[in-house]
């Protein structure tokens, strides 16, 4: 009796310690994730401007977004354009390169280093570099194109070519996910390939029927994360256009750039937080669809 009443059981003590260890994260979850999410949801129904006013205005922000803010639709379109092209291109590119690298070619480790290097470089320096590389007359990209007889476009100065320019730039960093694919390909049991070879399967069939199914979990992970990442495209447009204005003919006004300008230039914060919830909902729906579609094509070994 006495023992039972005094203090906690061993199991409870253990459990308490568990909470102590995850406490910093729990605090962060409330203070930096859940709280801000709720605040922005509530504030999106107000005309909040951070300093003086915060009046409830119902769905006005959302109505304004959908009916009278043409930049909202332009920014959404620009962002979708970027995601629709950059996600498949970088995924396919990364898979192809890792397949090549997975053949026991001499110097593989050196190649791996070289291909990965651009992925660790980021920030303003990289954007400035690409502005120079994409310079219409004297940049490296158009110089190389001219060798094969192609007259390169004006890239960042031509509204039709600004987004392809940004997508092109993202392909330079394809080595980041390449490394993920390579790591997972090296985990494919060699015996599978040997068996297939004895059965007379050619390299293409071996790729299609062994390598590809085995790396589908990584493709899935890559597609989900790069879709979410794609919707956050911002810095490229902010740095590579004059003072974040969004390039010629608004062609680089991405969703987050528009949101940024609404929040921190116009201080139309209630409206901007409404936009952030639209972004949240879009990303949530796409992730949900991805998760639902996954069982149809993602191959988990041993039904894990």
């Amino acid at each position, binding site marked *: 009796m006495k023992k039972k009443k005094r203090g906690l059981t061993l199991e409870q003590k*253990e459990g308490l310690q568990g909470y102590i260890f995850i406490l910093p*994260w729990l605090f962060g979850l409330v203070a930096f994730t859940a709280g801000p999410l709720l605040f922005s949801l509530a504030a999106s129904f107000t005309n909040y401007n951070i300093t003086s006013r915060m009046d409830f205005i119902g769905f006005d922000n959302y109505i304004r977004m959908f009916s009278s803010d043409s930049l909202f639709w332009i920014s959404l379109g620009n962002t979708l354009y970027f995601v629709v092209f950059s996600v498949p291109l970088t995924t396919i590119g990364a898979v192809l390169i890792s397949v090549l690298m997975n053949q026991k070619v001499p110097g593989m480790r050196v190649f791996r280093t070289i291909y990965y290097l651009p992925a660790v470089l980021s920030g303003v320096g990289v954007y*400035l570099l690409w502005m120079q590389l994409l310079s219409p007359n004297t940049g490296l990209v158009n110089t190389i194109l001219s060798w094969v007889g192609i007259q390169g476009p004006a890239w960042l100065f031509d509204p039709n070519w600004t987004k392809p320019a940004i997508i092109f730039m993202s392909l330079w960093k394809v080595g980041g996910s390449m490394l993920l694919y390579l790591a*997972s390909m090296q985990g494919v049991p060699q015996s599978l390939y040997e068996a297939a070879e004895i059965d007379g399967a050619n390299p293409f069939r071996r790729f299609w029927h062994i390598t590809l199914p085995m790396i589908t979990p990584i493709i899935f992970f890559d597609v989900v994360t790069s879709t979410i990442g794609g919707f956050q495209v911002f810095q490229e447009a902010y740095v590579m256009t004059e003072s974040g204005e969004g390039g010629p003919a608004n062609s680089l006004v991405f969703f987050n750039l528009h949101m940024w300008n609404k929040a921190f230039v116009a201080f139309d914060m209630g409206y901007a937080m409404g936009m952030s919830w639209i972004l949240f909902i879009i990303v949530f729906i796409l992730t949900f669809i991805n998760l639902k579609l996954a069982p149809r094509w993602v191959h988990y070994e041993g039904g894990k």
Partner: protein
Amino acid sequence: MSIWNKSYYESVKVKKRMSNTIIFIVLLAGSVLLLSPIWWMFATSVKDMQEIMAFPPTFWPNDWYWINYPETLKAAPFIRYTFNTLFLTMIAVFANTLANSFIAYGFAKIRFKGREVFFAILLATMMLPAFVTMIPHYVMFAKLGWLNTYLPLIIPQFFGGAFFIFLLRQFFRTIPNELTEAAKIDGASHFYIWARIILPLSKPAIATVAIFTFNGAWNDFIGPLLYLNDESLYTLQIGLQVFRGQVSTQWNYLMAGSLMVLLPVIILFFIFQRYFIEGMNLTAGSKG
């Protein structure tokens, strides 16, 4: 039957060697393409403007203006920016390795009620775009009077990041439970086990977190852009953006500045690349 005959094997070998040669050449060409921007950045940084504007452009500079580098350093307080950036980066590395390994230990090695639910929430937060919470963060830090200080860039780092917690938890789980159980029987507390057993055994994973954090903090642009106004607080990324406004299209100075900002990352990458690759293997391994 002919599979086992010698000439078949020979032909397979020859074919294999040929396809390997082709792959080698393709990869080599790709390497040249991928590295050429970095060479171009360097070459541009030592040219004068006349040569940069000349057509056709030169791959190997005619004249080498090393003076562009001291000129660039003179044009903006890059030394100051470097110290600021280093300060923020070091704190970020310290905070992230400490907090994330602590939290990850709880998820990996202690049984408690609701652990799986909390871990699922943690995974879900990885899917949350950072821009969704950015404006409320700004409002919160503004109300706390933290604008134009380093606090908004430092304090949140002490509460862990979902991806790093996930990564470290995966690694900690590969450390046999017998080790921690044995220590517990000897009367060791979880705090002791975390600090004295798990951390020393997890150096590669901790190094991976440190290196990713360094890279992220060094390259962080949005945070400093949002929170810092005083030039004396600027980091290299903001400094570079401001510098660009000053020298506009002086590409030699811009490339010299960019290269100086990128160089520490490039050097670090070559020294510690195995930790980058380790991080990728951990991520890939846990998804497969």
